[in-house]
């Protein structure tokens, strides 16, 4: 009976894995869609070179803030650590951004 005691602080907490996977997928869809839209806007606006990449990271920062708001600022309720909501998907979306950016750059030339 005494063996069913409290959890020591070294134990890894058990999380609902399928909910975590669903949340991470949801972030990934959001960031991919926003990368594509950001690429289209950057191409139409006529950004070239470094300005375009700065615009992309600006879009990603706004997306991070939006995702934080979506999780009602209690990140640990929905994810296992902060880096998931802030960093995950940023560099994967970069490729999509560059693709749509270069494909729409010709609108102005």
């Amino acid at each position: 009976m005494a063996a069913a005691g409290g959890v020591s602080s070294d134990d890894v907490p058990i999380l609902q894995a399928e909910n975590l996977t669903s949340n991470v997928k949801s972030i990934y869809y959001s960031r991919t869609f926003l990368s594509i839209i950001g690429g289209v806007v950057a191409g139409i606006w006529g950004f070239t070179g470094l300005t375009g990449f700065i615009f992309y990271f600006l879009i990603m920062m706004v997306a991070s803030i939006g995702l934080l708001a979506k999780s009602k600022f209690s990140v640990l309720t929905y994810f296992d650590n902060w880096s998931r909501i802030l960093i995950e998907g940023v560099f994967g979306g970069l490729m999509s951004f560059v693709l749509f950016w270069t494909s729409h750059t010709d609108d102005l030339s």
Partner: protein
Amino acid sequence: MGIGYAVGVLGGAILAHAAYATIQYRAVLKITEEEFTRPPMDVMMELLLGLVLCMWAGLAVPTKFLSVLPHSEENRIVSLPANLDFMIFNHRGRALPADEDLKLKT
């Protein structure tokens, strides 16, 4: 689900219209042989509007976040299978006085 998709489609349509307007603007500049650096102001406003709408749709449409904590209210396992092995019908409750006025203490 419906409103998010509608906003996203509207944002996409606004961006497509802005792209078309920019291409036409460039054609006009080719005729007048002027230099260009950026699209006209109303196209930029259109781009910003389309961007804002698409960003809102991009954050709202994917499934809402589900709690990962094992002990939160919505993650409780409350339904047990109806397994006859664990149902006991012959117990000492039969010997208790059957008082219909008894209420469950909550």
